[in-house]
């Protein structure tokens, strides 16, 4: 896959918000998530704790209907979950009403022994009812070039 193709697609698509979502953070889901991941800190597993909050990776599961824009060009083949990162600005709490925006944060290629892999970074940004940032989740999707 020629670098120029990636560069062109990158210039056109990176930073464009293509989906939005409103959600309410569910207490039971938070609790089941934390317990099944092995959390024992009361902040994550005791709903009556005054600082009860979602465990670190909780927002990574929140999906939207589309991982890529409808008219996003076909890049490479297959699809591998290359990993996720989360960055927190403040704790996510049960009952929080959040707004999420999804955009393509980056597109880049790496070439190794197994050929060229294209990385597409899908970014979901969560804000609260006042518009203040809560968390950002990046999901790296890998495609064979």
């Amino acid at each position: 896959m020629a670098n120029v193709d990636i560069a062109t697609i990158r210039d056109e698509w990176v930073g464009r918000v293509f989906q939005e979502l409103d959600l309410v953070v569910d207490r039971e889901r938070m609790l089941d998530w934390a317990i099944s991941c092995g959390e024992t800190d009361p902040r994550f597993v005791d709903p009556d704790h005054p600082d009860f909050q979602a465990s670190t990776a909780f927002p990574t599961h929140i999906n939207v209907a589309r991982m890529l824009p409808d008219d996003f060009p076909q890049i490479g083949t297959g699809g591998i979950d290359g990993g996720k990162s989360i960055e927190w600005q403040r704790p996510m709490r049960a009952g929080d009403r959040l707004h999420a925006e999804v955009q393509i944060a980056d597109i880049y290629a790496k070439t190794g022994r197994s050929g060229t892999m294209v990385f597409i970074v899908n970014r979901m940004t969560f804000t609260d009812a006042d518009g203040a940032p809560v968390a950002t989740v990046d999901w790296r999707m890998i495609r064979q070039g």
Partner: protein
Amino acid sequence: MRIEDVELGDELPEERPDVSLETVRRFVKAAEMDFPRFTDHEAARAEGLPGAVIPGIMSQGQLAAMIHRWAPGCSILSLDTIFRTSMIVGTPVVCRGAVTDIDDDGIVEIDVTIISETSGATGVLGTARVRLT
């Protein structure tokens, strides 16, 4: 755990999280990703996988739990993980972490991994930034 108590290179106590089918089922329901590839070995093999696989984001959650136990009351500011190899449900794994940086603001950087105890393969690796109390 206070910042004064931490030294570069400190290793977190190893953890062996519960990766039983029952626990993975509870997780995937909470995560709204209740797919057979995570909960049914035969269905996963039919997809070409070696067996039902532990969701990568569950592994991420297990690493966070390890850090929270090491430093009660800490805040994980960020956690970046790479999913390298599928970890199989019911096959023992071990979580490890080591402090790789300490800054003056009470924030430490920790390299984390999850390794299959059966194959020795690294399933997940990553880095966390953690504010200590």
